[in-house]
């Protein structure tokens, strides 16, 4: 039972009900069919039979009366008219009979019909005979004739007709009774089957309802809890039908929702955090903007200082320009002086050169003397040496050497004198030489100094000319600097203006930051609400 799907159950329920109803319908149909048959019977058999037979009975009676009338009518015209009428009514009667014949379906009726027909024929024959017989038109005979000849036929016919009528009526009654019976049975059947159907419907409905409402109840409960915020709720219907699908769908949805809400919770927290950070940053920015505003003011002050400094600089530059020109003229004077000094130095150098030449000659001479003196000294030296050795050898020679000793000694004395003299000369010459050398060195140094001095002077001259050049190039540069200074002053002014604008912009920034700060506060509130709202859920 549990494994049936709702569809199956519903189909089963409907099938049961439909089955019952079909059964009911079929039974009713059968019954109605029966009734129809009966009705048919009545329609085709009993009622027309009854109608025709009743009509025939009436016509039979009317015909008889008419016949009597015809017979009793005083006038022939009247009788003719009535005979015409009779012919018509005979024709009608025949129609009726034919019609009745159509409705005859039973054998006893057929028998009665045949009998009646025969009787009718017979009656008509008799009647016609009677009517044709005009002679007996005596009034009182007609009736007696009629009574005598027609009445029994008429009565028989009436009796047969009566029987036919009765039979038809009985038929009709039977049929009606059967119909009624069938109807009552049908009613009962309908009621029974209705009750059955109702019961079945109730049962199926109840089962179906239970099959639906129980899980529906769980679902509703689950949804309610879900709606209340408990996103951990999952369905477990233990069904394998459509509710299983619903259960899975619900669980999946609950999972997704749970994930989503947990994500939303996290996001809410993050948003709250981020908003707090943004708020902090915004306040920092506000502080920074305020600082910028302050700094801008400082810059403005500095810029004004720059302006003032520029103007001072312009003044200083003109002074510098004047000083440069004076320097140039002084340098020019210096150059002239240097030129004169250069000439003097040239003369000095020449003189020094000539002195040097003389000294060189002197040196050479002294050198010559030196060489001579050296020779003399060498000779003295050798002589001395010789004398020493001679004296020693003489001493060793003993007596024989005594005279030689004197000679040797004398030689030595001369040598010594020479040596002394030459030593003196040498000394003098050395002094001269040293003086000369000193002089030469001094002259050289002097020349060197002079040359260096000249070199220096030339350098100085060049430097002075360079100075002059530089000073000359200074003027346009000073002009440029002047222009630059003015531009700078203008620039400083512009900076000032820009700073004023910047200050305004900064103030606006501060304002907008304040607004944004307010907005962030609102956002904070919203974020908190979001977080509160989302934290309601249990995931």
């Amino acid at each position, binding site marked *: 039972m549990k494994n049936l799907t709702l569809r199956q159950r519903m189909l089963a329920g409907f099938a049961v009900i439909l089955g019952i109803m079909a059964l009911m319908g079929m039974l009713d149909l059968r019954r109605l069919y029966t009734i129809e048959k009966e009705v048919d019977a009545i329609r085709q058999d009993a009622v027309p039979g009854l109608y025709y037979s009743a009509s025939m009975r009436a016509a039979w009676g009317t015909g008889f009366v008419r016949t009597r009338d015809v017979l009793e009518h005083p006038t022939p015209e009247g009788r003719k008219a009535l005979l015409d009428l009779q012919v018509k009514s005979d024709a009608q009667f025949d129609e009726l009979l034919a019609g009745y014949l159509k409705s005859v379906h039973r054998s006893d009726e057929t028998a009665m019909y045949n009998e009646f027909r025969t009787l009718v024929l017979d009656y008509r024959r008799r009647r016609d005979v009677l009517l044709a017989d005009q002679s007996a038109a005596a009034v009182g005979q007609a009736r007696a004739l009629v009574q005598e000849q027609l009445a029994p036929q008429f009565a028989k016919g009436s009796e047969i007709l009566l029987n036919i009528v009765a039979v038809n009526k009985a038929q009709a009654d039977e049929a009606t009774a059967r119909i009624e019976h069938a109807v009552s049975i049908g009613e009962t059947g309908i009621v029974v089957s209705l009750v059955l159907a109702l019961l079945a419907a109730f049962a199926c409905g109840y089962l179906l309802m239970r099959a639906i409402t129980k899980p529906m109840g769980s679902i509703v409960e689950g949804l309610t809890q879900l709606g209340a915020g408990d996103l951990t709720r999952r369905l477990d219907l233990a069904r394998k039908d459509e509710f299983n699908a619903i259960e899975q769908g619900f669980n999946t949805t609950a999972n997704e929702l749970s994930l989503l809400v947990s994500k939303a919770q996290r996001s809410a927290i993050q948003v709250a955090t981020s908003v707090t950070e943004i708020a902090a940053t915004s306040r920092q920015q506000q502080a920074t903007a305020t600082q910028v505003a302050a700094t801008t003011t400082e810059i403005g002050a500095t810029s004004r200082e720059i302006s003032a400094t520029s103007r001072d600089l312009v003044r200083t530059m003109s002074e510098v320009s004047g000083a440069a020109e004076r320097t140039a003229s002084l340098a020019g004077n210096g150059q002239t002086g240097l030129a004169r000094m250069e000439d003097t130095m040239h003369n000095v150098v020449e003189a020094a050169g000539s002195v040097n030449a003389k000294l060189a000659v002197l040196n050479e001479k002294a050198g010559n003397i030196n060489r001579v003196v050296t020779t003399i000294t060498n000779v003295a*030296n*050798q002589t001395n040496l010789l004398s*020493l050795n001679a004296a*020693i050898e003489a001493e060793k020679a003993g007596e024989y050497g005594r005279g030689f000793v004197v000679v040797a000694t004398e030689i030595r004395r001369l040598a010594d004198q020479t040596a002394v003299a030459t030593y003196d000369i040498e000394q003098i010459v050395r002094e001269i030489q040293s003086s000369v050398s000193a002089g030469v060195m001094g002259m050289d140094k002097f020349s060197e100094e002079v040359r260096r001095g000249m070199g220096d002077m030339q350098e100085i001259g060049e430097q002075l000319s360079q100075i002059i050049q530089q000073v000359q190039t200074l003027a346009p540069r000073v002009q440029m600097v002047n222009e630059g200074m003015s531009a700078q002053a203008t620039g400083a002014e512009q900076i000032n203006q820009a700073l004023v604008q910047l200050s305004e912009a900064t103030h606006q920034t501060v304002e907008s930051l304040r607004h944004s700060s307010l907005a962030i506060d609102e956002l904070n509130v919203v974020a908190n609400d979001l977080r509160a709202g989302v934290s309601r859920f249990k995931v």
Partner: protein
Amino acid sequence: MPPSAAHLQPQPGGFVARKLFLQFRIGGDRYLLAADTVVQVLPPQPLKQVPGAPVWVAGILSYKGEPVPVLDMSQLALGQGARQVTSTRTVLVAHRHRGHEPLRTLGLILEGVTDTVHRDPADFMPSGLDGVQARYLGPVLQDEEGGMLQWVSVNELLSDEACALLFATATATVTAREAQP
């Protein structure tokens, strides 16, 4: 007038008592060397150096084919090398170490070698300072000018080790030179 000129005058007592001395200087003082010990006075000579020898060993001189050790007197006595002047001469002396044989030729670099003098050996008086180190310094003689002349004894110049060193070195040099092709 050179100081030695005084000695040209004939002396009372004849020449026999007087001895010829070679005068030289060490530092600021004058010293005498007995002329009979002097072989020859030479002008300053190129010397072969003796590496590793004491400072007062000036080098080795080749004299008549023989190697002669030369020492610097001023260096030996004062620790100061002899000045390179004309009067600084190389004096070759006949050396008998402490008076013992063998007789070897020794070279001395002496300063102020320009004079010979005649003096009476008897005029010399002991100096009163007989230091063991300077055994070569002998008796002294007062000069006319007031300075003192001291007699230097050649044979006492060297210590035993110095003598051995000096002449061994010279011999070694000879051996080395003879060994050369």
